[in-house]
């Protein structure tokens, strides 16, 4: 979606060259670090916080006094922020410095929360990836559409259709693979309506997307009540995606059980991140997609079929988002319920924007949001004073900060959301 709107209409003072994106991010980090050291440090009890490799309190990988840890990591955040502001990091290391700064802030927060308790790292990491899995796929679907200039706010609807179709066909065919394929088909159905209405009939893409979300909600809810509720045995007990363990690799601490004792969908999602990144940046298809998303008229002039490419990408996005929907019924729960995605599609949209419309950015953002969700469940389980709802708000608030450009503006593809009419 185009973010350049009023800027050119009103006399907004142009940002001074001194305040580059890195400097502003650095200042934000310093502020966060000060908050971490002062607030988390003073609130944290002086008890040991243990981050364990096993599921119980034994075998701590890191064990530190909660108060000390909160202050120490808060100070580290300030250091990384300072490095960004001073420009010592240079261009090359600025992103690393930013990531380290955010990480130390999170660890500082964790030291406060975990003090006197323990946090199982394996469980946290695998939970994070599991929660991030649909977000990754949803955001990748968004990348495909938006990079070619079609706004996709119907990710939520594609999730729902995918989850529903996966559960229904998976149960009726008795095969998880049939379920997986139908989930992709479910996503494609919504994508096809989106594509036809927005590309052929030139309806505003955001409007179509929102209406399609409601349509998917209605139709899956309707068929759920008509079919699945009356006879769950026949329609709503899909087989579950098996987890495969790769011997050897699965024994690596923390990452091994997370990555190599997992289901196919996770590997598929991780592979797609790389494939789409490579495809967008290194192949003819990718160059054309980006051209169509940035300047369709120019692309058309050199002979690229703008509408055809947009159709293709939106439908491919439907496949990917439908697979993301399959996560809900074939991996996470084992049955479909009404409105079971409950806003995950919009978090995926948030991840897409927060990740600056790039596959790896979307992946990182999805993992970050997955971590926030996982942390929310962990904190409410250990009875933390921080309400889980506020942690769950984090993806949404982070996205508002990102699009408002408070710290580094996100720029959407130039022709995003604009239908192309050949003149």
């Amino acid at each position, binding site marked *: *979606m185009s973010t350049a*709107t009023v800027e050119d*209409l009103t006399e907004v003072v142009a940002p001074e060259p001194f305040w580059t994106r890195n400097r502003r991010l650095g200042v934000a980090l310093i502020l966060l670090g000060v908050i971490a050291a002062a607030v988390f440090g003073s609130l944290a009890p002086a008890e040991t916080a243990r981050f364990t490799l096993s599921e119980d309190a034994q075998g701590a990988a890191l064990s530190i006094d909660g108060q000390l840890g909160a202050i120490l990591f808060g100070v580290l955040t300030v250091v990384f922020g300072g490095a960004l502001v001073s420009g010592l990091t240079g261009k090359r290391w600025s992103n690393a410095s930013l990531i380290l700064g955010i990480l130390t802030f999170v660890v500082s927060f964790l030291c406060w929360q975990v003090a006197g308790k323990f946090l199982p790292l394996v469980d946290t990491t695998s939970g994070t990836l599991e929660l991030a899995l649909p977000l990754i796929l949803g955001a990748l679907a968004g990348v495909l559409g938006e990079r070619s200039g079609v706004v996709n706010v119907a990710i939520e609807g594609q999730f729902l259709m995918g989850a529903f179709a996966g559960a229904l066909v998976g149960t009726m065919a008795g095969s998880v693979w049939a379920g997986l394929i139908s989930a992709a088909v479910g996503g494609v159905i919504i994508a096809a309506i989106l594509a036809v209405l927005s590309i052929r009939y030139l309806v505003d893409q955001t409007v179509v997307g929102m*209406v399609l979300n409601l349509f998917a909600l209605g139709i899956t809810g*309707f068929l759920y009540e008509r079919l699945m509720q009356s006879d769950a045995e026949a329609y709503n007990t899909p087989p579950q995606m098996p987890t495969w363990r790769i011997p050897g690799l699965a024994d690596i601490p923390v990452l091994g059980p997370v990555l190599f004792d997992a289901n196919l969908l996770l590997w598929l999602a991780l592979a797609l991140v790389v494939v789409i990144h490579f495809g967008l940046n290194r192949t003819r298809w990718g160059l054309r997609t980006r051209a169509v998303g940035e300047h369709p008229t120019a692309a058309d002039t050199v002979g690229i079929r703008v509408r055809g490419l947009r159709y293709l990408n939106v439908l491919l996005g439907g496949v990917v988002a439908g697979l993301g929907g399959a996560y809900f019924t074939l991996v996470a729960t084992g049955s479909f319920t009404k409105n079971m995605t409950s806003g995950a599609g919009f978090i995926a949209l948030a991840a897409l*924007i927060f990740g600056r419309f790039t596959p790896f950015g979307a992946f990182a953002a999805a993992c970050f949001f997955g971590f926030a969700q996982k942390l929310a469940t962990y904190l409410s389980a250990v009875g933390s004073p921080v309400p889980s709802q506020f942690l769950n708000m984090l993806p*949404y608030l982070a996205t508002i900060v990102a699009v408002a450009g408070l710290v580094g*503006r996100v720029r*959407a593809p130039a022709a995003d959301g604009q239908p192309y009419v050949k003149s």
Partner: protein
Amino acid sequence: MTAAATTEKKPDEQPADRETFFGVFLRNLWSANSVTVTALSIVLAVIIGGLLIIVSDADVLAKFAYFTARPSDALTASGDLVGSAYSDLLKGAFGDPEAFSAWFNGTGTWQEAFAPISETLTYAAPLVFTGLSVALAFRGGLFNIGAQGQAVIGCITAGVAGFAFGLPPVIALLVALLFGALGGALWGFFPGYLKARTGAHEVITTIMLNYTATLLLSWLVLQSGVQDPNRTDAISKTVHEAAKLPSFGGVLRVHLGIVFAVAATAGVAWLLNRSAFGFEVRAVGANPHAAKTAGIGVARTYAMLMAVAGALAGLGGATQVLGTAYALTPSVAGNIGFDGLLVALLGRNKPWGTLFAALLFGALRAGGNRMQSYTGISLELVTVLQALIVIFIAAPALVKAIFRLRAARAAGLSVTPAKG
């Protein structure tokens, strides 16, 4: 946005010589003006809904298994099922003839006869407000997906004001409504301000604020001072009697909110078409660059417009809490904000059109309840119908292609938010 869609049928550019009045009428009826497109959209949606009812019914499907042997079985069963579903929908929305005859015979009461209409109006009231919110923002070139979040915040502020202050009647209600409007206005002003200052696209910010508002509500209802002390589940205290919107009571749930809704429609119509602010809104919506050149403060208009739209959605939430729910729960706002989006699109972003669209949606919802309890067909069918109607409305070219309508002027739904 040009708001080109007109509701009247316009004569074609070059009427043939000495054409009969009837001929002109027929030709115009079959040309794709907005009334025809709307009617045909509803027809298409109802047909698809009927098909959905049939394919999701195991008994009827079983009859289709021997369709070639005895087609009448399958067709009669399908017809009966769809017929009873839709007749229950109509009875639940507008009134059951039996209830009316019972009232005339003296075996029933007038309340029972008018209960369906009352339900329709009850469901329509909040939708009018949220629909107006989206429609008004659209006219200024903004797509206010955030009506849902603004309605949720309106629920919160109106509900809290409703049970926290012990005010005398009338004043208590007015204060609670005012709080609802203010809460929604705040939640709408924020994305408007961000758009004006930083260019952050309102679609993104309002989507994100929707879920933020919902999470805030689900946190708030569990806090002491808000949660009902006699309950352990997520429900707040009940609003004071004085702050409730007065209703007939009994089966007639319809409350004063619908009257306020009509007044709000008139107010928005006046604001848009007669006030200086409305002129600025329409100018900015039509072309922000031209409006800027003409000396209109585009940024200020965006911020103000979103605040007013937010206030309307907040009033919708307040109507929901003070008129029907009386207490806050995590899902108290239901889907009124998103439904408001559909209502505005169906009403073609015109105040009075929005009012009628909200009444239609209220009728569908009220009828859907009866359909669910009598015929056993899920209420979700109504959501499908609503979405389908709006999909067809939004793509008049699609409806034209399906029915091979003539192209006509002023058929399009002009919903292209300003890209600036």
